[in-house]
């Protein structure tokens, strides 16, 4: 016997009264339902305005198409995922330490910051042609385009976070006998991690936008072109293109959740609550 909608709603409200994972899962589900509802409404409005033509498919049609085309978009999903993850790693490995150094070492800051102020405002899209000329049209250029865009994002966040460290923490370890390297290891790195993880979250959206642009260039490989190429190749059919767009959303969601999990592990101290004396 199935539950009545009123009973399901009562149970759901009961979940919202809990704290911890039950509540957060319930809120997540509510948020997704709300998004699907808005999507459905927007789809209906667009259909009405366009005389019944389906430029924006409704979520049920799009999800059904996504399931039907899983064999086509999934290999592209894997390709896009590794390109994006590799680009994030490259940007992180280069941008984070350099950002920390220029945030903490005054002379290096004076030398490098003017370069950043000149280079960062230039839209990185402007470098795409140059990168294609350097790297060709294969995988390296797609990774390089995304890594370049994210590098500045991470570099600037790391520099800002390193500048804003509470000096008491630095004094504390210096008075305990820390060397310069130990100050980085015990204070600068852990103190800046939360800001950098926030910056990585922002980078996912930016990275996906650049990945899409990079993947729509060049010849289409139906299995290894990436989601950008998949969407471009299916642009004649809105519902099929939406299967690719949903796959991109899924990739973003997986990366966001991964960063949340990493934060839970590496910034465990942030999730503690004060107890009484």
């Amino acid at each position: 016997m199935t539950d009545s909608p009123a009973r399901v709603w009562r149970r759901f409200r009961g979940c919202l009264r809990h704290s911890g994972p039950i509540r957060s899962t319930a809120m997540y589900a509510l948020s997704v339902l709300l998004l699907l509802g808005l999507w459905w409404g927007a789809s209906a409005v667009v259909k009405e305005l366009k005389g019944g033509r389906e430029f924006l498919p409704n979520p049920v049609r799009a999800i059904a198409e996504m399931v039907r085309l899983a064999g086509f978009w999934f290999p592209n999903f894997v390709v896009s995922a590794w390109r994006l993850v590799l680009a994030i790693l490259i940007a992180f490995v280069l941008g984070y330490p350099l950002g920390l150094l220029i945030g903490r070492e005054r002379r290096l800051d004076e030398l490098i910051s003017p370069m950043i102020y000149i280079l960062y405002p230039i839209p990185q899209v402007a470098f795409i042609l140059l990168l294609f000329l350097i790297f060709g049209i294969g995988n390296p250029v797609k990774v390089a385009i995304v890594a370049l865009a994210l590098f500045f994002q991470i570099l600037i966040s790391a520099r800002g976070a390193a500048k804003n460290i509470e000096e008491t923490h630095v004094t504390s370890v210096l008075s305990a006998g820390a060397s310069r390297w130990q100050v980085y290891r015990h204070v600068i790195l852990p103190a800046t991690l939360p800001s950098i993880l926030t910056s990585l979250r922002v980078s996912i959206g930016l990275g996906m936008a650049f990945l899409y642009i990079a993947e729509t260039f060049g010849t289409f490989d139906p299995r290894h072109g990436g989601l950008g190429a998949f969407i471009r190749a299916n642009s004649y059919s809105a519902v099929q293109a939406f299967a690719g767009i949903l796959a991109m959303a899924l990739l973003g969601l997986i990366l966001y959740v991964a960063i949340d999990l990493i934060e839970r592990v590496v910034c465990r101290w942030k999730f503690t609550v004060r107890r009484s004396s």
Partner: protein
Amino acid sequence: MIEVDGLVVEYGRGARATRAVDGISLNIDKGESLALIGPSGCGKTTFLFAMAGLYHATEGAIRIQDEPLRGTRREIALILQDAGLLPWKTVWQNANLSLKLRREYPAKTADEVLEELGLSGAKSLYPAELSEGMKRRVGVARALATSPSVMLMDEPLASLDTLTKERIQDLFLKLWTTHRFSLVLVTHDIEEAAFLGQRVVVLTERPARIKTIVPNPEVGDLDFRESGAFLDAVSRLREALEEVS
């Protein structure tokens, strides 16, 4: 034990140089407790940090056990205003920090010190999970872990409520009588200076110079706070501070 000879500390260089400490000379005996008191921003902390080896003397010198002080030393421990705990390290990791940084493991380990301070049950907690009083005790544990012969404290009980403050002052006194380190306490609290300092050095407005030194030899008893001698010391210190403020 500690000899401060004509110490001058300046920030900045050339025309922009700002003098924070101006020609302080002072001797602190082994096992003595000394309180430094003066108007806000007068240079007390700068003087203390110079004794910790964190600031270099522009002129003059500091000698610890007849050796010139150049940089931080294992036998000098510093307790900061908010205990200086690192939020990302547990209580045990914070207490063990000085030992880890110096890669030295003397007889007194972090475990022993935490037990002595009644913090054994809190080893795996993070500072955010602790009350203010517990945080200060962890700061003390970290300082004690290296068995220092000089304990420097920079307003260690600022922003605590009165009862917690008095409990921790009692703890400082007990530790000082047990461990017999030389104690230098910077404070803006007259009663704290009178309760913990065998001598109270009153400093002038910036740049800090010694205005007067008030002897307070009866320090050392937990009941001292209730005595007439304590009230007398408080009154003398108030007068001295009013003269410099």
